[in-house]
């Protein structure tokens, strides 16, 4: 079964090809069927692989396909690695991917680019699978960039809107910045370890001492790559903009799968990261900062998808925080639960948007819970899950990270917990603004609001269930579980036994749960009881709110600090340096020759007397030479 793993990415690729070629000729049903069907097949195979791996004593299988690149000592095969980590990722990608495909059949039904959309989604799944299956950094890099491409294509799906097209480009370029880091890290790995194969690199790294500066550089660069893909400071601004894409895309790519690639990569390379405590520290700080920043910005956003986007940024920050403190399991656990509930949230938001006829501003919503009951319930489940209330999945994963952070650094823990409160606040703010109170749009529009078709609600329900119970795979021992996940992952990620006793753990849980509840209550009072509605764009806000609403002006800062200077340099280089100096020298040579020509030709004055005089001058000099040389 495991040897059939190449089918898992291949089938979506086939789906891409078939749908891509037939996008204009096939009926929408057929396209939807093919598009989702291939993912389902992959999912089924993935389950098979998962089960086979579970029953197999050997936990790591490398499936060699063909030699891809070889140059000198560099040999890069195209081969897949099946181990517990990738097997779980396979399940998440194909599973959630399948649900989102189903959802998309309904969501995109009226779009003229239906076929294109499905083919892109299939392509994305293919690349994502490549990313997680790659047995070396380069194959991972194909998937890494490939998903970036699909992200680009899907963000710019409605490309006639030029700001969407710009958002797509931004996403791609920001990812590219990270990718350069990744690439250089790969070069370093190659020169340090002589290979880019996981199976060769990690054992060698295991023999090294912590604090090795080369490894520190490698991990730092890898982290830069992860920053780009997983939207960490300073490369996070593309993610909110990426909401330009259709909502299923936001759910699949920009919440559940692609953006977690960075975490996957770091978790995969945990051997290296463990050798570089300094870098881990950096990761933790940046993760924490990102978490706070995302949460703060999310508090004031009015676009329902933007709230979720910043929430994603914030949650990703959490995961990095976890990675930074060595809680690979916790982070990965959070990746899984986050995939469930964030996909759910986005899909619910999509359902709302679908119902509202592509209205995304929460200021024009309100009181939708009666009109969209399924959406409301499922979204509420998702919200609770992300807020971290037990026994929903988010609670367990977030708590595991928090516990490790506490163990690592108390200040960080405090900030992280505070961020969790903020998370609860803005998530419930969203729920309250959307589903509670009274409808704030036009009456005419209100009549058209209706619950989404079953193809859309079915995935919602499935995901809601997963969000609710997903935590089961990682119930900590403190709560009587035995953390199945960390056991499963132990061949890849060595389990760090928690030094904390259960009492501390209970205390931590209590603090976070109580805080979250308080945050929810505050939100309730503010947005339900007081019926507070965010003000229009033009009106005055407090300074903090203003800064938060404008996303800390980071886009503007980037614009001023990076883009404009580069454009200015470009202009100067082109108009002044290239045209005037470099080309000017070349043209100047030509010009001076022709000027010399103008001068020299005056010698030819037409006057015989002058000619003879010149000749005589020449003769005199030659005779002088003769005189002197004798």
């Amino acid at each position, binding site marked *: 079964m495991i040897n059939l793993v190449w089918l898992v990415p291949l089938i979506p690729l086939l789906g891409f090809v078939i749908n891509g070629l037939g996008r204009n000729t096939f009926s929408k049903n057929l396209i939807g069927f093919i598009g989702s069907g291939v993912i389902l097949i992959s999912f089924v195979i993935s389950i098979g692989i998962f089960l086979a791996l579970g029953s197999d004593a050997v936990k790591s299988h490398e499936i060699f396909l063909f030699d891809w690149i070889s140059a000198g000592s560099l040999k890069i095969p195209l081969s897949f690695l099946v181990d517990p980590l990738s097997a779980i990722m396979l399940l998440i990608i194909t599973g959630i991917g399948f649900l989102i495909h189903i959802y998309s059949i309904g969501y995109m039904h009226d779009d003229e680019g239906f076929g294109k959309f499905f083919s892109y989604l299939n392509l994305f799944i293919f690349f994502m699978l490549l990313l997680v299956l790659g047995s070396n950094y380069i194959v991972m890099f194909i998937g890494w960039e490939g998903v970036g491409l699909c992200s680009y294509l899907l963000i710019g799906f409605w490309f006639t809107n030029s700001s969407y097209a710009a958002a797509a480009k931004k996403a791609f370029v920001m990812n590219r910045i990270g990718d350069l880091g990744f690439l250089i890290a790969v070069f370093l790995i190659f020169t340090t370890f002589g290979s880019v194969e996981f199976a060769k690199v990690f054992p060698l790294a295991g023999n090294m001492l912590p604090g090795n500066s080369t490894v520190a550089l490698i991990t730092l660069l890898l982290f830069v790559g992860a920053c780009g893909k997983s939207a960490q400071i300073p490369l996070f601004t593309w993610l909110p903009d990426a909401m330009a894409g259709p909502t299923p895309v936001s759910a699949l790519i920009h919440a559940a799968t692609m953006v977690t690639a960075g975490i996957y990569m770091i978790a995969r390379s945990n051997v290296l990261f463990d050798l570089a405590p300094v870098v881990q520290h950096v990761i933790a700080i940046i993760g924490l900062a990102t978490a706070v920043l995302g949460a703060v910005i999310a508090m004031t956003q009015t676009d329902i998808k933007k709230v979720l986007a910043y929430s994603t940024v914030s949650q990703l920050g959490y995961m990095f925080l976890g990675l930074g403190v060595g809680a690979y399991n916790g982070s990965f656990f959070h990746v899984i639960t986050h995939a469930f509930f964030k996909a759910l949230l986005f899909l619910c938001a999509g359902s709302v948007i679908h119902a509202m006829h592509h209205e995304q501003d929460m200021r024009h919503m309100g009181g939708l819970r009666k009109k969209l009951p399924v959406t409301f319930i499922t979204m509420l489940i998702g919200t609770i899950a992300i807020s971290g209330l037990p026994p929903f999945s988010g609670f367990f994963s977030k708590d595991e990270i928090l516990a490790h952070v506490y163990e690592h650094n108390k200040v960080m823990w405090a900030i992280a917990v505070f961020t969790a409160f903020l998370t609860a606040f803005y998530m419930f703010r969203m729920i309250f603004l959307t589903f509670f109170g009274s409808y704030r749009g036009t009456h005419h529009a209100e009549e058209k609001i209706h619950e989404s078709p079953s193809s859309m609600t079915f995935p919602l329900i499935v995901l809601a269930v997963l969000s609710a119970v997903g935590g089961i795979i990682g119930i900590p021992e403190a709560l009587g579980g035995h953390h199945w996940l960390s056991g499963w992952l132990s061949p890849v990620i060595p389990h760090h036994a928690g030094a904390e006793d259960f009492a501390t753990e209970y205390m931590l849980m209590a603090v976070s749960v109580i805080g979250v509840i308080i945050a929810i209550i505050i939100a309730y009072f503010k947005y339900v009881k007081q019926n507070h509605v965010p003000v229009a764009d033009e009106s005055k806000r407090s300074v903090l709110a203003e800064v938060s609403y404008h996303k800390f002006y980071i886009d503007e800062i980037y614009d001023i600090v990076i883009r404009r200077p580069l454009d200015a340099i470009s202009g100067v280089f082109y108009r002044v340096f290239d045209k005037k100096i470099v080309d000017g020298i070349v043209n100047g040579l030509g010009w001076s*020759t022709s000027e010399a*020509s*103008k001068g020299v*030709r005056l010698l*030819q004055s037409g006057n015989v007397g002058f000619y*003879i005089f010149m000749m005589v001058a*020449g003769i005199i000099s030659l005779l002088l030479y003769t005189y002197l040389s004798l």
Partner: protein
Amino acid sequence: MNIIITIVVTALAVLYAGLFKATKALLPLTLVGLLVALGFCVTAWDTNTIYYGMMQMNNFAIAFSSLLILGTAFIFLLTENYFAKDSENVAEYYTLILFALSGGVMMVSYTNLSMLFIGLEIMSVSSYILAGIRKNNFASNEASLKYFLMGAFSTGFLLFGITLIYGATGSFSLGAINSYLVGNYKMVSPLFYPGVILMMIGMCFKVGAAPFHFWTPDVYEGSPSLITTFMSTVVKTAAFAAFIRIFAGTFAPLHDFWMPPLMVIVCLTLFIGNVTALFQKNFKRMLAYSSISHVGYLLFSLITLTSTSNNNVLLYTAAYTFASITAFAVLILVKQKTGGDDFESFNGLGKRNPLAALALTVAMLSLAGIPLTGGFMGKYLMFLNVMNQYQIYLVAFAILNALVGFYYYLRVVVAMYFKEGADVLLETPVQYKVVLILSVIITVILGVYPSVILNLI
């Protein structure tokens, strides 16, 4: 000897034919005479006959004579109706050209300075006259007088040089002079050195090297185009052959003495020729300047004397001769139709007369020294020889000049192909076609398979 006799007899026959108004017979007669002379050249190959100690028909002389005769024949092919509209004394023109040719043959075969002198003067005096044959044309008059005055002046220096050499060695014979040099290598008479320099000045004037080149552009421009063709190809080749014959042969032991000033002359010549040509608006005048620059490249062969110098000069002059003939032939065609000889007159020639345009393009590429043309091989050999002596800076300088050359040679190509001109078709007379096609073929053969004449001498 047979060669000179044939040429002179042909000249006289033509003169008499003219007397009897047999204008139709002139060209065939001339060509037959030239072919016979060429035949004598071929049969004389490898015989190495010495005539009275004055002329030596060695392979060098024969090869250059053949080149001169061939070039003259090509030029005669271009004479159709050319002189007739100027004068009725066409026969005299033919005669003068043939006399000049006979002078040229003497210049390439002399072994005595008196022969050099006589040959040179026959050629020069004929050229003075030929330059002025458009009697009512002011430019032609001016060209003739300028050429004459400066030519006579420079002859004075040449003679002074010959005199000093005679004073030093007591002989006019090249062999005697050479053996004097070899015999008294350490104590050459002080008269000898200025003699060499003054001879060099005289020869530089004849070949048109700076700063003794001033007559070239004016005379070339003012003379009738056909005569310019003759002067810039046959006369120049003969003068250069004479130059190399004495300097590379007889004066070789003093190479260290006369080489440095010659190098300065080469640099000046290259610079002035190329740089001035750059600015010209008149195609003919541009060719005049370009001919100066070619002298600069040719003189490379004197800067480094190797066993192959003679061959290299032969190849270079052959390539140069045929490319120039092509260029002038097209120029004459264009001038006859449009009345102008500046670059604009060539506009759109690519459309109006593809054959002429193609031939001119090949000629220009050859003059510029683009591979696969004879001109490249010539330049290459010159560079090769000079590099052999590691005078890299000289070659680098020459290369920079060649670069300037590309620019002005391409200008006419640009005019022909890339600019729109009047939509008048240009007819090409059959003889012109023959000349153009043959020249192009020769140019390409020299470029692709130079071995044909590379080991001739």
